[in-house]
């Protein structure tokens, strides 16, 4: 088999998938070629289409092939609520798990000065325009409780305060069904600090 045979190229290419090492890449390649060429062809077509046509929503920065994503285009959502998340996948998670019916803004990461991720990379100027121009009742920050997440939340909180917008951050704490004994100290401290009236 030649060094750059198509088969080898396919196996190599499959390794860009998260969690797929050389062994799994080989297994997937053989599976598609031997058992499911239709599935493989369809995957290739849609993959090529998706990679070129999916961009970012001009309003919330989530992934979409349109100018506006479905959530931003939907007239039945509450314009006075804005939920700020790090990743497009979190929009989907919140949509599936909660009854939230407001709008979203996707940062695409967290402020991380040492990695060169600053306000520009996160679209914070666009977010600030929304804080200033829209009649928002509440901005909900759904940002991970890491050091960089804390910096990001604080930064946005400062900007929201300048524009007189109420800001909240989702509670972080003990997982449902989790036993306190097994929760790490940091999580427990956050859960304790975020306690509320019964």
């Amino acid at each position, binding site marked *: 088999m030649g060094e750059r045979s198509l088969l080898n190229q396919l196996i190599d290419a499959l390794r860009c998938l998260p969690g797929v090492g050389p062994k799994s890449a080989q297994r997937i390649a053989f599976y598609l070629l031997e058992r499911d060429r239709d599935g493989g062809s369809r995957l290739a077509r849609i993959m090529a289409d998706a990679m070129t046509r999916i961009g970012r929503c001009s309003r919330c920065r989530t992934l979409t092939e349109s100018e506006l994503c479905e959530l931003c285009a939907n007239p039945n959502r509450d314009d006075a609520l804005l939920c700020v998340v790090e990743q497009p996948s979190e929009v989907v998670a919140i949509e599936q798990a909660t009854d939230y019916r407001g709008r979203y803004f996707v940062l695409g990461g967290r402020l991380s*000065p*040492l990695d060169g991720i*600053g306000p520009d990379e996160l679209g914070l100027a666009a977010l*600030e325009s929304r804080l*200033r121009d829209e009649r928002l009742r509440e901005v909900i920050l759904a940002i991970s409780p890491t050091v960089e997440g804390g*910096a990001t939340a*604080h930064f946005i909180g400062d900007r929201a305060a300048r524009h007189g917008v109420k800001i909240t951050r989702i509670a972080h704490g003990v997982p449902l069904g989790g036993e306190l004994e097994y929760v*790490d100290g*940091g999580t427990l*401290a956050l859960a304790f600090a975020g306690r509320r009236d019964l």
Partner: protein
Amino acid sequence: MPRQDRLFLAFVLHRRDYGNTSLLLDILGSGQGRFPAIAKGARRPRQPASALLQPFQPLWLAVAGRGEVRTLTRVEGAGPPIPLQGRALLGGFYLNELLLRLLGRHDPQDPLFAFYQSALSRLAEDADLETRLRQFELRLLDELGYGVRLDQVAEDGAPVLADRLYTYEREHGVRHASERAAGPRLSGATLLALTNGERLADGQRREARVLLREILAPHLGARPLKSRELYQRWFGSGAIAESPQRRDPTTARPVDSEEPC
């Protein structure tokens, strides 16, 4: 084979994703200096180590391996994270960036570890961010062997006097102020406050900041400090959309904003 699971105190200076489930960390360890290490599988779901392996969290660590990059074998919290917020948090990022830029790897700098730890605690405690940052910078320069004397004039050894003016030049150190002197101009009181680790008064903060930038510049090189840029963006008075370096329209020099780094 010798057991290598002796625990030491440490801080994560920086972390980044490594492979699909691991973290590559830059660590400052007591008695270990600065070194890179991998935390294998730390990004798998329900891994408490991932929550712990963050900047400003005091840690007990054990490592294995003898090569350039070590492998973490144990991770335990050594107390609650140092509660840095807002300006103090950016100050903390700045300290980490200075260490990453200036500190070589595997060079055990024991006094530096203790000083870093106490500098973080002090950042969290009080509002006098600038004095803390200046003290850390001077101490770091000392530990690295780049220390400069600020309490006497380099050329004639005359003691610096609080009510006199001086200049600082990279090649010559502190000099008597004169028309031909090139570097930043500053008061003896500021030089003495820095030497004695005293709280900087309002008018002294800017002088001290400009001085330390001048002293650090040859060691930092041309690449700008990113935490400094973020500070300007964050606390600059304008909207985020404005360019980070606001310039004075008359002199075309950067406007001096409230930036402590």
